[in-house]
């Protein structure tokens, strides 16, 4: 866990406070501050989505201030999406901007599988772990980490983690096995097919 226990306890206490008083502006801002202490992006995004869903949409100054506070932690396209709702447009209660740390806003399923299953924070950690293992790890440990990493990429269709790891391994000029190529092809194929394809009945064809 990247976050310290104290920071997690603080965030949980602040989450309870907004759950008790959904329209308490000060409680939402305190929770957002607590989320910023956690180190990841997901709690910040989740707390901001809750604020946009639970507080009156007319309070645009507050929304813009909260977004400004959080934007350094958010991916640019996520900040832009919040920005579109910071000037009085409603953010629906079921939204792609909610995360598993939200309590009022619910994550929308109307997104690709990789967004439903993977978290950018976790993807970054897994990519760093596999690169570290393949660079400096003991061979058996490295093989296990690599196997688990590629399994994760396939099961969660996590091409973000795969892309990060592949890029760093190329940078370090680390040669990887054939399975990386097969996983890359598989991820590319699934990205092209998208969710429009009918679900196959088995994992036949997965790398």
């Amino acid at each position, binding site marked *: 866990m990247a976050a310290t226990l104290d920071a997690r306890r603080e965030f949980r206490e602040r989450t309870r406070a907004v759950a008790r008083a959904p329209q308490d502006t000060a409680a939402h801002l305190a929770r957002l501050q607590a989320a910023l202490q956690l180190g990841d992006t997901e709690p910040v995004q989740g707390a901001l989505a809750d604020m946009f869903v639970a507080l009156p949409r007319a309070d645009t100054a507050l929304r813009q201030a909260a977004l400004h506070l959080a934007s350094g932690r958010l991916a640019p396209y996520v900040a832009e999406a919040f920005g579109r709702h910071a000037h009085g447009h409603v953010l629906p209660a079921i939204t792609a901007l909610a995360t598993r740390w939200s309590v009022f806003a619910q994550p929308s399923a109307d997104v690709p599988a990789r967004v*439903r299953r993977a978290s950018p924070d976790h993807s970054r950690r897994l990519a760093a772990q596999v690169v570290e293992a393949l660079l400096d790890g003991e061979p058996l440990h490295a093989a296990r980490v690599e196997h688990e990493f590629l399994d994760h990429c396939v099961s969660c269709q996590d091409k973000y983690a795969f*892309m990060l790891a592949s890029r760093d391994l190329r940078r370090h000029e680390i040669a990887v096995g054939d399975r990386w190529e097969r996983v890359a092809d598989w991820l590319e194929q699934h990205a092209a097919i998208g969710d429009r394809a009918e679900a196959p009945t088995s994992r036949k064809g997965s790398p």
Partner: protein
Amino acid sequence: MSLELVEPASQDIPADAAKWLLPTPRGALHGFSTPEPGPAQRAVQALLSAPQAMELARWRQEHDRNGRMLQQLQEKQWVQLLRRQVPAPDVRLGDFAQHVIAPLSGERRAVLASDSGFCLGHSGLDQELAETLSAAAADYSSFAARQARRGWAGAQRVAFHDDPDMLLPEWSFIPLWIDGTGYWLVLAGEPLLNNLAMVELVWSIRLAGARFAAPL
């Protein structure tokens, strides 16, 4: 390889523009939270019975003849209207479970157990602890059933704390009933149930059950 990680925020979709329907995380949690589901819970459960999201028109024909169920479920935020088809998880339950249960825990340490105490999947902890927690879940199932027989139905979910102020749970035990079978999710740290992984987990268990059911 393009990275389209988060799409623009979804808008409220009018029913006449939507083609498919899925439970929200809250819907999945409530829809499978009891061994004796009511009409609203059965209507939610029906949405996760096929290898893809159910077509709205078909669901309305089968579960919303009077036209009020959709509105009721939307008011509870148990269902979501969709503009795109969403396929079920395309994975075998055994290895999918570890990927789908991990994000339900703030520490990414989680166990999926049967209510008879078998460990069906675990992530972030060793096999021995996973089996110990699965056995504890089975014990808790018996405890909850015993209390229900005595007339107290409140012993349904439980969290165990190490901290005296009971702020951050050490382990949370959450029961699910899927097609008449009891399961337990055992989650370390913050239970993060407002999570699409809830929908994918329940869906994958249902489909695995249907796939392996004995032929009639």
